[in-house]
């Protein structure tokens, strides 16, 4: 698997759609290539908790029969998608990475899954998540680029499957960076949309006021397409043009908040890659301005306080009945949420208003279109250190606390070959703006073209 590969498992969603429309590939060809890649990579990366091999192949043949009759299932006709095992699926288990839900078989699809299927996508399987998406246990999934490294989380399988080519795109959830971290450390694109712009119905909640559903893919325009389907925004007719992402960045204003995002334990290789990316964005016409938002230092405390309380509410009955079936670290967090004073939770929500107001003022005063930052301060650490990664939350929780859209796009590699991500945080409901900036950057760089080794 390398740059320029002609394997369908390495192609972007938009490239696959073009090939399917032209009849150069059938949906069965695409699915067969995806399943071949899955067979090759799963023994070493463990991205999937459940694979619906026969069902996926049958669905691909159905798509081909439909297109053979002149029909078309939708904008994602025949595209193989991985779904985080936190989304309810009517035809596969939904176990949330936990013994607590072992054998759980929902009767309905989550709204996001329903939308993907209605658009013609085919669910390859359920991708591995940290237990209930809390990021506290160590799942079997490994980084696509180095199997001794952290795969990101909690949408670990969703990130690794897309990087490895065992899905063309995927969906995950992001409550404190769980879409953007796997995207960054696996060298792909991950979008956390504005709070509320994609339905979380039928998704097992992590902490409802911080939870977001978002897509992961190998290219920015693929994420744009998946977002369009998931959010229901814009035309869904496949003959309609894709979002206009090719506009130049002249007049675009990008803010850099150094204190929070650059002066806080950022590895030199990451800092260098992001500074280089800023220079590329300048060359594309963007203005880069320094901005100061000291209130961001509250974001991690706000996030953790809200998370433990909201999490423990959903698990309150389950933890009494199934306490020993939870991973000990997850159990401890849920117990902690039951002990924290209600006043502390309310004060965290009030402090959240302060953070949100400060970020809003910075966007207004500096006329910003986006804030640019490292997606993560480090490249993927060894798997043994996976539970010590508070720095990742530090960089990513601000957009969950404020509800703003945020995207991670590949912007380089460390000397030891590990991917680095660039984070763009946009104005609320301005996904199109950050997608446009990310696509402009992607168009003039080559990081997205590198693919990880296929097998160990």
């Amino acid at each position, binding site marked *: 698997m390398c740059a320029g590969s002609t394997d369908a498992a390495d192609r972007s969603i938009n490239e696959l759609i073009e090939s399917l429309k032209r009849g150069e590939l059938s949906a069965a060809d695409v699915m067969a290539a995806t399943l071949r890649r899955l067979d090759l990579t799963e023994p070493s990366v463990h991205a999937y908790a459940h694979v619906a091999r026969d069902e996926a192949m049958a669905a691909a043949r159905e798509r081909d029969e439909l297109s053979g009759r002149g029909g078309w299932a939708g904008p994602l006709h025949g595209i193989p998608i991985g779904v985080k095992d936190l989304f309810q699926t009517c035809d596969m288990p939904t176990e949330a990475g936990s013994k607590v839900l072992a054998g759980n078989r929902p009767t309905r699809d989550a709204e996001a899954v329903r939308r993907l299927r209605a658009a013609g996508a085919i669910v390859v399987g359920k991708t591995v998540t940290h237990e209930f998406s809390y990021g506290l246990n160590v799942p079997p999934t490994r980084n696509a680029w180095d199997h001794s490294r952290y795969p990101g989380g909690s949408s670990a399988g969703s990130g690794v499957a897309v990087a490895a080519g065992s899905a063309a795109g995927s969906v995950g959830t992001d409550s404190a960076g769980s879409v953007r971290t796997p995207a960054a450390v696996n060298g792909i694109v991950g979008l956390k949309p504005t709070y509320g712009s994609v339905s979380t119905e039928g998704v097992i909640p992590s902490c409802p006021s911080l939870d977001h559903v978002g897509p992961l893919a190998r290219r920015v325009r693929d994420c744009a397409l998946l977002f369009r389907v998931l959010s229901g925004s814009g035309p869904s007719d496949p003959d309609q043009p894709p979002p206009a992402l090719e506009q130049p960045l002249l007049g675009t204003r990008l803010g850099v908040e150094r204190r929070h995002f650059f002066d806080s334990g950022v590895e030199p290789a990451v800092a260098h890659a992001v500074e280089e990316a800023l220079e590329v964005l300048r060359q594309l016409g963007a203005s880069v301005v320094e901005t100061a938002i000291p209130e961001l230092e509250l974001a991690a405390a706000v996030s953790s306080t809200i998370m433990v309380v909201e999490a423990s509410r959903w698990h309150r009955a389950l933890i009494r009945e199934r306490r020993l079936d939870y991973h000990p670290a997850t159990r*401890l967090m849920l117990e902690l949420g039951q*002990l924290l004073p209600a006043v*502390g939770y309310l004060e*965290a929500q009030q*402090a959240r*208003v302060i953070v949100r107001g400060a970020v809003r003022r910075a966007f207004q005063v500096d006329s910003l279109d986006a804030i640019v930052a490292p997606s993560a301060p480090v490249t993927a650490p060894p798997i043994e250190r996976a539970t010590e990664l508070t720095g990742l939350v530090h960089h990513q929780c601000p957009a969950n606390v404020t509800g703003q859209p945020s995207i991670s796009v590949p912007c380089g590699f460390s000397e030891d070959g590990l991917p680095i991500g660039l984070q763009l945080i946009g104005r609320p409901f301005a996904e199109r703006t950050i997608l446009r900036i990310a696509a402009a950057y992607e168009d003039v760089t080559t990081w997205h073209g590198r693919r990880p080794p296929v097998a160990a």
Partner: protein
Amino acid sequence: MIEPDCIRRMSDALGLGIPDSDVDRLAAELSAQLDHVRRFERLDLPDLSQEVCFDVRWEH
């Protein structure tokens, strides 16, 4: 610092059923989390209203 015995008593009083094996670590975690909460107390917090605190959506 929260004493482990406080955790035991709270668990008993509230019927939480927290196992003894979790008590020491939970005392440490709760102490750390309460340090976060004390930071909030020192802020000039906005009025508490449902609209302000729970509607995290921004205007379109």
